[in-house]
Each structure stands twice: as structure tokens, then as C-alpha cells.
């Protein structure tokens, strides 16, 4: 009887046997890596309507984060400042002093700050692009973390070194829980404000009193690890 299939087809089971596991591993690894927030979200750096430089304001000028994000100690949101806050420094003041946002020679608004001028005069908001996007069902509260003295840098990275802000951490639930299960590396002693960017417990040595204070605080801290801690 003539063969129905040619001889080379005998290799097909072998090829499938070898290729399918490899393919499966590639797919699983691919999804595990390329579909994870570590890959998709970290480094997200959208273009903002105003090329606002945190490096200049928070870094070089050393303005405290809370000067602009002033609700962070009282509210869940560390609100993006209203245009009026920018205007406090950049607007033309009543006594005729030179406004920072104006071209010193022509007194015309700097083109990069045009959205600010428009917003302040028309009272329409500036359309900032959201960088750190938690899902709507996760209720993160900034004030709780600030009162525990978790540094801004722990989640947002070195904002003071970012010309354009990008997402520094993956903000996944597992990442949140890592810290909630072991908050010690991120809790600062009261002598170090949360907004200090360059503080690193592994580098800066704490005094014995500070170590003791953090230990006592940790003992009472009890960050939630259950679902309703963040999902309501």
C-alpha cells in the first residue's frame, strides 16, 4: 500500500514536541515580561502642555514639594496645583516688578508658558497629562503615607532629577504589598521630612535615637494588607 503521507512527515510529531514547549515558554515569558506594569508603565513619560521642569523647581531651586502639591497632608490626592499657584511666582505682580515668565526685553509672555497665561486669564484649567495612573478601584491616600513619613521618592523616584516627569515604579498591587508587608526601609524618622529627595536609609546613617523612633513607629503602624484597605 502506498504511503498516504510522505516520509518527512514523520518528523512532525518531533517538531511539535520540541517547538510547542519552547513556544509556550516564549509566550508565557513574553506575557510575563512585556505585559507587566514593570515593562508597560515604568518610564511612562508623556509630553505635558507646559514643559514644566521638576529638576529646575524641586532640584535646583529646592522648592519643597508641598509648596505646590499642598493638599498632600490632608487629602487622598496630592492635588496638581491650580494655575494661581504658578501665577504666584510667574504672574506680573502689582508693584511692577519683573515677572519671571515674561521675556525681560519685550515683556511678552514666554511661548512655553502660554497655556498658563490662557488658563489664568480665562479660568479654564491647564490640561496636564496624568503620569501615575492607579486604577479607579484602588483608593490610594497620600495623607496616610505622609503621616507615616514615607518619602515621596519611595514611590515617585527622584523627581528632583527629572526634567520631564516619568513613572519610576510599576505601581502594581504586588509592589504596594511589598512595602505594606515590610515598610521598614521606607519609613523615615521625624527628623527627615518626607519631601527630602536624596535621603536613603541604606546610605545615610540614622542615629540610635532615630532607629529607635522608627522601630517604635513601625510597631504601631499596621499598614493594611487586606483587600478593603484599598478597594472599597
Amino acid at each position, binding site marked *: 500500500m502506498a504511503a498516504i503521507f510522505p516520509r518527512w512527515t514523520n518528523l512532525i510529531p518531533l517538531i511539535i514536541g520540541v517547538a510547542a514547549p519552547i513556544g509556550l515558554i516564549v509566550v508565557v515569558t513574553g506575557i510575563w515580561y512585556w*505585559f507587566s506594569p514593570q515593562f*508597560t508603565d515604568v518610564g*511612562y513619560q*508623556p509630553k505635558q502642555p507646559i514643559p514644566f521642569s521638576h529638576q529646575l523647581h524641586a532640584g535646583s531651586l529646592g522648592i519643597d514639594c508641598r509648596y505646590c502639591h499642598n*493638599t498632600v497632608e*490632608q*487629602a*487622598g*490626592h496630592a*492635588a*496638581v*496645583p*491650580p*494655575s*494661581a499657584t504658578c501665577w504666584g511666582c510667574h504672574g506680573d505682580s502689582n508693584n511692577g516688578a519683573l515677572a519671571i515668565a515674561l521675556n525681560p526685553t519685550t515683556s511678552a509672555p514666554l511661548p512655553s508658558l502660554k497655556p498658563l497665561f490662557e*488658563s*489664568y486669564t*480665562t*479660568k*479654564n*484649567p*491647564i*490640561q*496636564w*497629562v*496624568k503620569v501615575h*495612573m492607579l*486604577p*479607579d*478601584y484602588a*483608593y490610594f*491616600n497620600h*495623607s*496616610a503615607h505622609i*503621616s*507615616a513619613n514615607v518619602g515621596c521618592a519611595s514611590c515617585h523616584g527622584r523627581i528632583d532629577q527629572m526634567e520631564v516627569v516619568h513613572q519610576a515604579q510599576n505601581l502594581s498591587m504586588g509592589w504596594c504589598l511589598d512595602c505594606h508587608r515590610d515598610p521598614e526601609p521606607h519609613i523615615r524618622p521625624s527628623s527627615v521630612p518626607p519631601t527630602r529627595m536624596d535621603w536613603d536609609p541604606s546610605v545615610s546613617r540614622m542615629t540610635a535615637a532615630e532607629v529607635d523612633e522608627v522601630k*517604635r513607629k*513601625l*510597631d*504601631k*503602624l*499596621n499598614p*493594611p*494588607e*487586606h*483587600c*478593603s*484597605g484599598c*478597594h*472599597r
Partner: protein
Amino acid sequence: MNEPTHKPVYWRSLQDLERADEFVQQHQHEFPDGTFDPDASPSSTPSSLNRRDFLGVMGASVALASGAALQGCVRKEQQHVLPYADRPELLIPGVPSYFRTAFHVGGFVQGLHVESQDLRPTKVEGNPDHPINNPPPPADQRDPRRQRHRVGASSVWAQSSILDLYDLDRSQKPSSNNADAPWAGVSEALQTLTAAAASGAPVSIILGACPSPTIERLLSLIASNRPNVHLFSHDLASNEAEAAALTALVSPHHKLLYNLEKAASILALDADFLGSEGDMVRNARLFADGRRDPERGSMNRLYFAGPALNVTSAMADEHLRIPSSQAGLFLAAVAKALPSVPAHISAAIQHLPAPSLPLGKEAWPQEVAADLRANNGKTLILVGHRQPAWVHALGLMLNQALGAFGSSAHLIDHSANNAPILKPLRDLTADQAKNILIIGQNPAHTAPGFATILKSASLSIHLSGYRDETSALCTWHIPRSHFLESWCDWRATDGTVSIQQPLIAPFFNTLSDVELLAAIATPSPQATLAISDVAARDYGFSTVRATWGVDEDRWRSALFKGFFLMGDAASLRQGAVTPKPFAKTDTSPNWQWNQAAPLFAAFQAPGEVSSDALEVSFALSPALCDGRFANNAWLQELPDPISKLTWDNAAYLSPTTAKALNVNSRPRGRDHVGDLVTLSANGQSCDIAVMVIPGMADNVVLVHLGYGRDPQHAGKVAKPTDASGTHGGTDVLPLRDPQNPWFSTGAKVSPKGSVYTLATTQDHWHLDTGFKRPIIQEYRIDEPNLFNPQSEEDKQHAELSTLKNEAYQSLLFGKSLVVDDKQSTFRDRTHNGKRTGAIVQQWGMVIDLNTCTGCNVCVIACQAENNIPVVGKDRVLNGREMHWMRIDRYYRGATPENPDTIVVQPMACAHCEMAPCETVCPVAATVHSPEGTNDMVYNRCIGTRYCSNNCPYKVRRYNFFNYQKENEEANRLAKMQKNPDVTIRFRGVMEKCTYCIQRVMQAKIEFKRAGQGYVPDGGVIMACAQACPSNAITFGDVEDTTSGASEQGKGSLVRALKSLFRNYAVLAELNNHPRTTYLARLRNRNPVLTPKPKDDHPAAH
């Protein structure tokens, strides 16, 4: 799995009592048959789905879903942050602010405390400082633990008023003769009216009840020295009969205020003082105070005489089912039976015939009289709003004779306010009605005969929130602002004046009562201009402010508190020469008893009632009032406290009467159908469905007002059409007799031969009563050793209460799991792994069935707080209603004709320590927290509904459709009401009570921020507990032994309540260890009227 071996002692419906096989089978399933049937809702799903269509739809869905999913994985859509250009001072985005304002229904004022999320009002609460919403407790109940949980309560109508604010069906434009008209025309019309008043032409102004200093001031300006300006009042929710009696016997400026906590013996005569009548919030709180601590001594006794079917009758210790028309005669019989009554009483009542009492109830007048006399000085007789003025007069006489005044009742003298006297609307004559101004209200619909007078008016102007039946007959309609959009002030019964402060600018171009009256009272070019130009309309504030001559500091402090106290001197008021309080308690009233004769002369012997000549009794709907809240979907879907009917009204009949009339209502499949009948009374008739309600008086047909309004006038929610047809009930207002609008005899019911489907939830979510232990525990207060178990039976009962029923454990787990409560790992406050210094609080709840009236406020408060959608009548019929909290109503007694008692039981997720739902979830979407709450993780839920199937309390609700989206499509404004701290649930997700976890977490964060590691007792109050008028719900940390400063009030209140003997867990034998437990209901029965059965002991109920 549990065969019912006997007829139940407690039952919800006649079918429940009968326990037919069909009923038992149906209720062994979590959802009634057909709930999952896609055909059940043809409006939302294709009704004929064949295989080809199904595959087509599925294929497309898969393709779309995978496309969307891939995109979703790669990158979320770009989102924007839009900060204010100039953020208002003190506004912190995401942190709610609270404002005090005020609200009234029928002149019964409540102070409110309204939450505003980023400047949009989202939740209404009672003002905790207001003497109506949070009256001070009696002196012997100043337990510091209780004080921590005493907050401002509110009513169903106050809670749901927030939804009316976001109602797109509200009138948005003025109209003239039913056509849109410009505001300039409104200015002209008002100028014409003002000119008419000035020239002496007859002008009639019709208002609702309006005890407002500013409105009174404006009315005085308009009407003073103008004999042809007539002021009328019309408000079905006000107490017109009592006002008439007080006007005759004392003065028109006197009002009645009750201190129910001081009354040991209370007779409610057809009065719903705990439900829809009067100062319901204050009365319920103080009534509950009179029975809150029976362990510490006495408990009040409530007699109810009337046709029943309201929460007050369910609360009564003894109830007499008589028609409304017999109630007055019953009171006269009580007066006749009283020993040594003053001569003016015997003279007034001597011509009154004896009441016809039901068989076997002949001893009532003597017994009630004896009880009232025995408690002299500690009694109270409350006469219902629906009773005529002579019954109110008799009630006043008896209260005075029994020494109630000065103790449980107070006459409050409001005469210092010089308020103009408003005449009742029925006094309006046609020649006074040339020019008519109607402020609010809907008299063409609610006042019999008014429509004809209105049509004859040459100029009629109606200010109204909706283009209603009255607007349609008026020459001008002006849209009216919501109370949260406008300034006003209101004087409560006790004289406290609250400021109605707006929280938001008017959504639509609307006018408030004060603005309209100010434009007439002080006509000026500016006011005329402002009427036509909304931007210039800022004089609402200045008009109210002008009433008050106080300096800015006192004004602001009043705004902050929400009110001027009754005792604040009247020098506050503009132009007051000598300081006078707004109102004072009249301790020695000048009773004019001889003026009572004309009131009694109006008495007409009521016709004998029988099944051929029924009494038709009209009552305000506990949800829709007289129809003014008809377009509120929350209220339409709110189950009636007794009948559990939603979206419709029905002709309520007792089982005996229904049998005599040969009509019935019964379940059919998953529906409940009532025979459609023609109800005719006073020469009018309407078609309405019958619903048989045990506990009704015989030969009475009771109907609720407010339903069946034309959607063109009331709004599209008032009479919606869906898969089950057009519903929204029947308008019974035309049936009323103008002379006695609340009840009349001689009504007839004749079957039409067809049926109507009623959406009642009374048999939904049925707890299997085949278990040995009762779901309801109810004791008589005269039980020996009730609070101190001595006998073997009592001890056995106490042991059962501690959840150690080994037999059941063997059945469930194959072995006995004796869990010692004291050492339960579920309640370990230090059980937090590594860290030892942190406290893990253990949340729990106690609901006191002895003070819970079943008034439904908690249900609406929960709906508002937790973003619970409305599903519509056809989904309610399928058992798909979404209320997280329901109130189960049980009857007790072996016969449906004469149930012994009615008990209500609020039921929500009990947060079991050993929760059956958690063990069956395949995806861990419902899990336990270390704080003892049973968490629901919406994002994990895949909708298997196993948890719901395994829940013994039937408290889980499933989103069969995307209800939230449907609600939003129906009204795009309503999403502004949503609580931003609670997730909006999507289709296919299970949900249930979370113990308001958003409030718990917020409180924890706040107390952590303040440096305190835990929430002290009273630091977090649930939405249901906050709204509860009777303070029946207590939430807190069950393991808190340290809260409170003094030794007396150590520990949490919830812990103290859980240690009481009457604390019990529902279905405790399942070993679930629910965190929500109940305090047993106690009845203070009259031992003569209801003798104690010999074999009746606590454990045997």
C-alpha cells in the same frame, strides 16, 4: 435541606404561613426561578436568541474583547488632570466639606448637615446639633457610651431629596399657557399681579405650610393694609386638623411638641407619628428613648387604634384594628371610661355614640382608660393628621386632663413672630380668585374642587419644581429652585429657626420662593431686572439676611450651627423693639374649652362599614408623600414598610374582607398578582389592583396617595413603562370627599375579572425558617426572670445564644467545632503577625429590634452612600433589586386574619466570622479581613454567584445588567450624586453591605494622622446608623474595652450591647458567628387585653 416540620410562628406572607410545597421549593433556591432567564427582561436582552445569533454575537465579542484587551495591556488611555485655574479658598480636592441647611415637609422642619464633594452635594444627614434631629436624651439615659453614638437623624424624604436636586425632569423654563415663554414675560406678569394687589383688586396667594420668618415677613409686607390680598395654605403633609383645633381652643399661633420619652403609656389614634406624620425624626428618637433600656427599669407601652398598615401600628404593643371613621368614637369611649373627667369633656362627648369595636375587643376603652389614668402625668394621646378637628380637640382635652401638658406634651407659643394667619384653601371663594399666585404645592391635583376655581382666574402664576397639573391650568408657570439651591429660613415646631443655605448655584434658570415673594413685596426696577436676568439674581440671600438684624459674627455662627436657637432673643430680627424668643413653651395656656362646641357639632355619625359599604381610607405614601416625590426613583423602588410593594400603590384589604369581596392577591410564578378592581367612592371610581395585607382592619380599603400621576406633569419616573407594562400605580386623589378628604364610608369594590402584576419584595430573600431557632426573638416584658436567667429553659436558651449547638456543627462539618467566643482567633485585636503594638480593631454591629420601627431611612441612606442603582419594576419582579439593606417584616400568630404582632428586622451582610460565602468563591473575590469584615473585591469577581447561593441571610446582590450605566443614561445629572469613595460596580459583579468600609478606612486614616493608632468608639458611624431616627443601629469595635474617659462609660457601646441577655445572632446554629447581632424585641403587653399564655416561655417562640 431542612424540611419544615410545623407551621412557622413568624411569617412574611400568607403563602409563607401556608407553606405549600411550591412555595418551599421556590425558596430553597437563592434566586427565584427565572431570575437567570434572559427572557425575563426583554427590554434589555433579545427575547428569541437562537444558536446562530448567539455564536455570531459571541464571536464578535471575543474579537472585540481581545482587541481591547491587547490595547489595554500595552498602555492605558491617556488621562488628564484638570486642576482649578484658581482653587476656591479652603477647598481641598477629594476632601468633602459639610454645610448646614434645612428642609421641611408639611411645615415639619429638619436641620440638615449636607456633604459636598468638590462642591457638589452628595449626601444628606441630619444636623447633629439640631433639637429636632438629635433631641437631648432623658436625664437618666446620659450614658457616655450612648452619647458617643447619638448623631443627627433624618427622614426618608430628607435622605432622598438629594436625588431630586439632580433631576433632569425638573422644570427649566417659564411657560405661559403651557408654551415656553421668556423671563421678560414673567416680570410683566409679576408686575401685573403687584399692581393688582396695590390697586385693591382681589389677589389670593396660596402656599404650602411655610413657618419661615422671611416668608412671613414678605407676606406681611404684601398683605398688610390690603384687605383684598388673601393668604391661603394647602399642604396635605401638614396637620391642618390639629391646627384648626388649636386655633379654636387656644390660638392660631400655638403648636404641639411632644416629649415622648416622658410618656409611659401612649395611645396613637390613627397616628403615624413614627412614620410619615409630624416631627417624625424627633418623635421616633424620643419614643425609642422610652424603651431603649428595659434592663434598667421601665419601658413605655404603645396602644394603636386605627386601620393599621404603617410603621407605628407595627411598633405598637397592643393594637386595635378599627376603621378611621371609628377612631374618634373610640377616643370618646376611652374618655367616657375615664374616672373623674372634667365637666367640659363629658359635656362635649355625651352625644357621641359608642364605637363599633371588633368582636372580642370590647374591653379596650376601659383598659386603655385605666392604663392612662394609672400613669397620670406620664401619658400621651397622639391623634393622627387624618382625623377631623373634633377628635384633635378631644385629644387636647384628654391630654390636658391626664396631665400630659408640661411633661410629655408642650404647647409652644409662636405668637411672638407675628406671623400672618393663613386660611385653609377650602375657604377660597371664586371672587377672591381673580388673581392667584401659587407657591410650590400642586393644589389643582391635591385639593378637591380647586381646579375649577383656578380655571376661572384671569391671572394665575404657579411657582413649581415641575410643570405639574396645577401649572397646566395656570396662565404662568415659573420654575422653582430646589432647597439645596436657594436661601430661606424655617422655624421648627419647637421654635428653633434653621437657615436654609444653598450648597450649589441653581442648575437651571430657576427662582426660589423667597426671590419670587421679594420681587412682589418690594417691587423695584432691580428686582424686575433680576427676574429676567439670572446673573443679577442675588437678592435671595440679601432678603433672608435682611430678616435678621444680627451682626455678621452671630449670623455666621448661626450658619455654622445651622440654626438660631428658640431661646435666642428676637432682637436678632430686623426692627424688633424688645427682645422676644421665637417661641416659648406656654406653661399656662388659656384654654377656651367652650370654643370646642362648633368643632364637635361638625361630627356626623359614620356610616356602618361592611363588605358592601367599605371605608376607603387615604394615607400619605411613606415614600412619595402626596405625590410631590413621585419622580424620585429611590422612593419609587423603596419597598413599603408593611406591604413591601414597590413602584405601585394598591388597594390594601384584610384577608377577611378580601374573601368577602371574592378578590385576592397571590404569587404567580415569580410575580405577585392582584385582582384588578374598580374602587368607587364619593361618586368617582378608579381601577386599582388589590393586595391582601394581614393586620388590616376589616371592611377598610386603604390606598396610598401620590401614585399614578401623569408623567407629563410629574416626570418620567412617576409612571414609567418597561417590559412589565406601564406602572406607577393609580391616582386615587379624585376619589376623595372634599368635606372629609382622608376617609369616607360607603365605598365599593367590584372585581374587573383581570389581574395586575405587583412588584412586592415580601417573599424575596427568604430566610429558611426550617431551622430550630427562630429568626425573630420576641419576649413579653412581664416574662419572669427575663433579664436574669434562672430556670433550666432560660439557661438553655442562653447557651444557644452562645452559638455552641453541637448537633448542628456535626451536621455541617462532620464534627463538633466548639468555638469558645472568648478565645476566638477571629476577634484577636493583637492578631497582626509580626507587630505587637498595633491594634487590629474588630468591627461589629448591633441592631436593637426593640427600637427599630422599620421606617426605611437606613435603606435610602445606604443607597445614597453606597451608589446603589435603581433597577426598575420588571427587575424587582425577578428578584433583582439591589438594596444592600432590606427590612424584613414578619407577622406573628397562627391565623392570617388576626396576626398577633408585626416585627421588623433590618437585614444586611452580617459579616460572619466563619462566612459561608468565602469558602465557596473560586477566585477569592470575597475574603475576610483581619478586622472582621467580609470584604468584597469587585475586580476579582467573575460572577459565579456561588457566594450568594451559600449565604444563609440572602444579603448578596448581583449586577445582572449594567444598572449603573442604565441609570446614567436615564439621567445624566444623577452621576453627580455618586459617592466618589465607593466603586461603581459593573455588570456581572456581586455586591453587598461592606460595613461602609470607606467610612471605616477614612476614620482610620484621620485618627492615624492625628497620632492615634486606632478609631475610638463613636469615631466612625455607618450610613444606616447615622440616619436612623430611633438610634437602633450601633456600630463599633466589639473588642474595645478602653474607649471613654470615665469608668462608667468604659469600652465601646457595641460591646456593652452585645453583652446584654437579649443579644442574639440570627441562624446562630449554623456556626457562622455573624458580627451583626440583634437585640430581641420586647413587648409591653397589657396583661388584661392580652393575657399571658401559660406555656409561653422565651425559648419556645
